[in-house]
């Protein structure tokens, strides 16, 4: 590589190689996001204003955010717990080796099976005329909705449905972390007289904490922005942030375009925080695993 610097300064032609990518990223990722942020701080007259962001304090919007956060929180938490239990059972629990590979393959599929078809699957299973609902009613005379208060078309149903992709995502991410727990650490702890509980509390758990928290943040963001499943389950009347935004884009239900941008800005902020946490914790995990 001797072509450089013979004639002093060269034109930065190598930038041409990445120009298409940066142009694409600028026009179809960066600029749309920036335009939302700008729109959120621009009034109807075109001047700068905080009115839109202040307008988010209306009860409907606050409630939409709050329900969204609750749904994302619980589906992420349950997804983490169940996914961890399953991954731990397979990696550490002594289940036969042949389960592992199919479980990971299946998790890869299930974590990508979201949107409308997922909603249909749950409606066919625990919806009003679903397989389990009907089975409970005819065999045991139990009315699922009356007995447990469970309604698929509410936030509880949404959380249950999201678990279908949250749990496998957790399995995919946490299995390598569990593999990273070296046998020597446990043996060393045992030789020094640690009980299994002490080993978990003082060695394994602190090592896993960044992975666990990071995955929780990822799962949270993952369900926070999801539109299609919720839309198919409950329709436009369910008051969660992404659905409210969907209705706003379709027909300005808030009656103020600026407020719509502020609503979108709020979503970027929330998923942005969750994802930053995830990326930061992941870099910490990787540092430790090296």
């Amino acid at each position, binding site marked *: 590589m001797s072509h450089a610097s013979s004639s002093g300064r060269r034109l930065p032609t*190598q930038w041409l*190689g990445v120009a*298409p*990518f940066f142009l*694409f990223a600028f*026009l*179809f*990722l*960066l600029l*749309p*996001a920036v*335009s*939302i942020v700008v729109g959120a701080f621009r009034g109807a007259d075109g001047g700068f204003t905080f009115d839109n962001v202040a307008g988010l304090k209306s009860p409907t919007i606050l409630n939409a955010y709050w329900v969204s956060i609750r749904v994302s929180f619980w589906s992420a938490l349950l997804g983490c717990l169940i996914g961890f239990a*399953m991954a*731990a*059972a*397979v990696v*550490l*629990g*002594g*289940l036969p080796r042949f389960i592992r590979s199919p479980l990971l*393959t299946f998790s*890869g*599929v*299930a974590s*990508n099976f979201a*949107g*409308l*078809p*997922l*909603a*249909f*699957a*749950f*409606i*066919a*299973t625990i919806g009003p005329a*679903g*397989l*389990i609902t009907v089975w409970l009613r005819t065999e045991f005379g139990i009315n699922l909705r009356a007995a447990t208060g469970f309604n698929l078309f509410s936030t509880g149903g949404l959380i249950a449905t999201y*678990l*279908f992709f949250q*749990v*496998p995502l957790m399995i995919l991410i946490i299995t390598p972390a569990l593999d990273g727990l070296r046998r020597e650490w446990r043996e060393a702890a045992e030789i020094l007289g640690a009980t299994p509980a002490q080993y978990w509390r003082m060695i394994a758990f602190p090592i896993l904490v960044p992975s666990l928290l990071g995955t929780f943040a990822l799962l949270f*963001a993952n369900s926070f*922005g999801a*539109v*299609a499943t919720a839309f198919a389950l409950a329709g436009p009347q369910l008051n969660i942030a*992404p659905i409210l*935004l*969907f209705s706003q*884009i379709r027909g300005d239900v808030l009656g103020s375009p600026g407020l719509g*941008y502020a609503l*979108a800005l709020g*979503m*970027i902020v929330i*998923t*942005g925080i969750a994802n*930053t946490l995830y*990326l930061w914790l992941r870099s910490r995990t990787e540092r430790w695993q090296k």
Partner: protein
Amino acid sequence: MKLLFAWSAFLLGSLIFILPLVGMTEFSLSMRRGEYSFDAYASVLADPQFRATFTYSVVMALVTIVFGVLLVVPTAYWVRLRMPYLRPVVEFITLMPLVIPAIVIVFGYIRLYNTSSWLPLTGSDTGTNILLMFGYTALALPYMYRAVDTGLRSIDIATLTEAAQSLGAGWMTIFGRVILPNVFVSVLSGAFLTFAIVIGEFTLAALLNRPAFGPYLQLVGANKAYEPSALAVISFAITWLCMGLIQIVVRLAPRPPAQSH
């Protein structure tokens, strides 16, 4: 004792996956009263709307894959070869679609590229199709870029490039006949994942008003009883097929020869 816990955790957890799959399959087969039949599938497949929207989405997925490959592979190659200091920036950009929800991205598109803007893409069907393709490329960017970058890491691109150059190859030849074939397996993984994402995507297609498979699913879901389950089974089969193909491609791939440095 430990084994008992492990088995019960595994089996109870599996119910979350198994029950909905059994539920949707059973439901999709019970359109005819009292016996199982494929009536719901026949009804779906006979619907001209199904064929039109499904074809539209398949074509969109293929176009998105081609565009994504042409955008990502040269960039990832060039950054690795000549501009490694740009890697953090490029990686950050490719992660942006995970940070910004799809619905917010498309909201920005509608604001920026509407009929009264400087680039009125939504003004015509072709323009909107192109905008939708850009949106899908953005959604698939994190997966495509990571797949390709992993593939590039496993080959010695600097040596390959120099060897090709000393044999007189131009950039097009190097890219098309040296680099792309060497990362073909990674590109295919990214392509299948892109396909799985695009085929059932709802938000972008619905808000840009394109006749894609996702909005059609929504329409059927709101108006029919048994057909949605049949469509769910079909969608699950497609997702499974895409992921299965990734596994097969990765497994069948020739291992790159060990490099000596």
